[in-house]
């Protein structure tokens, strides 16, 4: 795939930021509305896949390397496990437990408690859940993008060799 026509490229350039922002919205509001890390990440990755289809995998490979994406994916995964470990480490007495939500109802980020029977959602709640959503989102974006990119690139190579 060496890219499609000019019309497709232009429309992709216009649509890309909107899809991207919608995906990031789904990731960040994962603890309030349906959705979360995986769903939002899949939306963002589909925006990236759109780029691969419109501009071609070779062009995209020049902009971002498979290696960088794989590091990004590892960082997402490490982030998720580290947030799970925080439940153990911050409370180093016997009350700590793996995956414990230490940031909920505390003074830290995302620490406010949910008001009973409130009709508006407050984004600054739910403790470690939004942080984990962000970590998972990062991993899913990088993972799905690298899958699409590498597959497109590999099939391109097979086609190039004439068989």
């Amino acid at each position, binding site marked *: 795939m060496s890219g499609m026509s000019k019309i497709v490229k232009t429309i992709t350039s216009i649509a890309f930021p909107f899809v991207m922002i919608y995906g990031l919205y789904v990731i960040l509001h994962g603890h309030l509305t349906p959705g979360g890390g995986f769903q939002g990440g899949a939306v963002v990755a589909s925006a990236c896949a759109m780029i691969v289809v419109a501009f071609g995998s070779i062009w995209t490979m020049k902009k971002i390397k498979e290696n960088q994406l794989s590091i990004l994916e*590892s960082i997402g*995964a490490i982030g998720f*496990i580290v947030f799970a470990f925080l*439940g153990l480490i911050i409370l180093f007495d016997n009350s700590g*437990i*793996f*995956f414990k*939500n230490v940031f909920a109802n505390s003074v830290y980020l995302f620490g406010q408690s949910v008001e009973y029977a409130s009709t508006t959602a407050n984004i600054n709640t739910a403790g470690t859940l939004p942080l984990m959503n962000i970590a998972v989102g990062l991993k899913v974006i990088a993972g799905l993008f690298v899958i699409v990119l590498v597959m497109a690139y590999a099939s391109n190579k097979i086609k190039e060799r004439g068989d």
Partner: protein
Amino acid sequence: MNGVVDWLILHSPALIIAIPLLGAFLTILIGKIGPRIRNVFVIIIMAITSFLILLLVNDVFTNGIRTYVFGGGSTSIESSYAIRILFEIDGLNAFIAIIAAILPIVAIIYSWAFMKEHTGLDKYYTLILLMTAGMLGMILTGDLFNFFVFLEITSIASAALIAFYLDKQNSIQAAFKYIVISAIGALFLLFAVALFYGQYNALNMAVIANNISFTFIDKIALVVLFAALAMKAGIVPMHMWLPDAYGRAPASITVILIGTTLASLYGLFRVIFTIYGKYLFSFDSTQMALTLGVLIIILAVVTIVIGVFMALKQNDFKRMIAFAAIAEIGYMFLAVGAALSTYTFERGAAIISASGQMALKGGIFHIFNDALDVGLLFLVAGAVYYAAKETSLNKLGGLARNMKYTTVFFLIGLAAVSGLPPMNGFASKLIIYQSMFQINPLLTIVAILCSILLLAVFVKVFYSVFLGPKLPKFSGVKEVPKSMLIAMGIIASIIVFIGLFPNIFVENIVTPATNALQNATSYIGGVL
């Protein structure tokens, strides 16, 4: 100091899963620094994990059942909302976990030299650690859906590792076969989980085991679970993926694959004895236990016979060992099936006869021995491949002159797998033969005959690979590097130790495991 150890023991069920996972993703970052540091890092991570497993196992054997709830909250479950991620470790889990503590660390030490010349090793080690985490999760979890998730993690990681030799057609083909079989097996497992969830509103094994009423839907779920897990364990009608996967993967991966296969077998035993335990062994359904037992015996005999006869006609070193591994799985299955068929109803409770008890003990003991014996043989096959770059038995020959230590390790493995004294395989097979003779002498005859044939198979291998005239082609062959010898040495020394002192092992480790297997009520009591 004591406080830290207590803290480690308290949180070990979570740490055992979390540390390999964290290590897996850190490996990619650390791999950028240098291969040596990465290898040391992976070994340290795995050593910590093994150490934690041994701490946990020791704690379970002294203090009884352990539970761990992820995210906090009380360990006991009220019957209405039984949804949480819960690990429950009793004697049986702990027993299988010992295997999972030994095999991956041996595989990683072995890989240091074995995989040195290949590229993409960052991802190789990442996948090994992921696979280990998945296997340990399967073993420790007390939740059926969780079991499915860890099964899939293990399958994905191992399929990618089987395809590690990307330039070989056969390994890609084997990996595709493996992933198709695993995906279908896991999806049917999920289907059975959904059947349970629809009826009992629970995913926890203990809660399901407590509420089970053996409706028609439960029978369907039993069939689906049995088929899916037996497929993953390599029982004969569903074994076609196993020789390919074992034979084509790098030898270090095969060793961990044995562990995952045995984890599936553990899942099968857990389903039969714990989840269905309460009903299967009650008064009005001892007939059911007998039916299930006979079915298992038939499958097991077919597995043993086909495994041995297919091993006889193989020309490839690793494929031959793979078929021998299938036959060995048949022995465990045979013992457990025979134990199931001896359930009788006396004085208000279903009890298992003395010979059945012994058969169960032998079968469980054999799980451990099989993992070590077959693992050692695969490591030797890998060493031969590393030194001579050849696995075909027709072309190999005369390697004993140049590879003395490897030959010794092969002889130990040979004796252990075909049940010769003084190796561990003899200890467990003797228990199986003795108990089986009281249940049905015909089964003993088949078992002993197949064991002798297995010996014949491996003597043939020994002759064609290690003995014979020195071939000019292999004159430059050298002994394999130290890391591979150390890995083989660890397994060989455990084999010899268990073979010399089987009683210590049976009394302290196997007996608690068989007791836990038969005692579904205590497993349920750990949570409710």
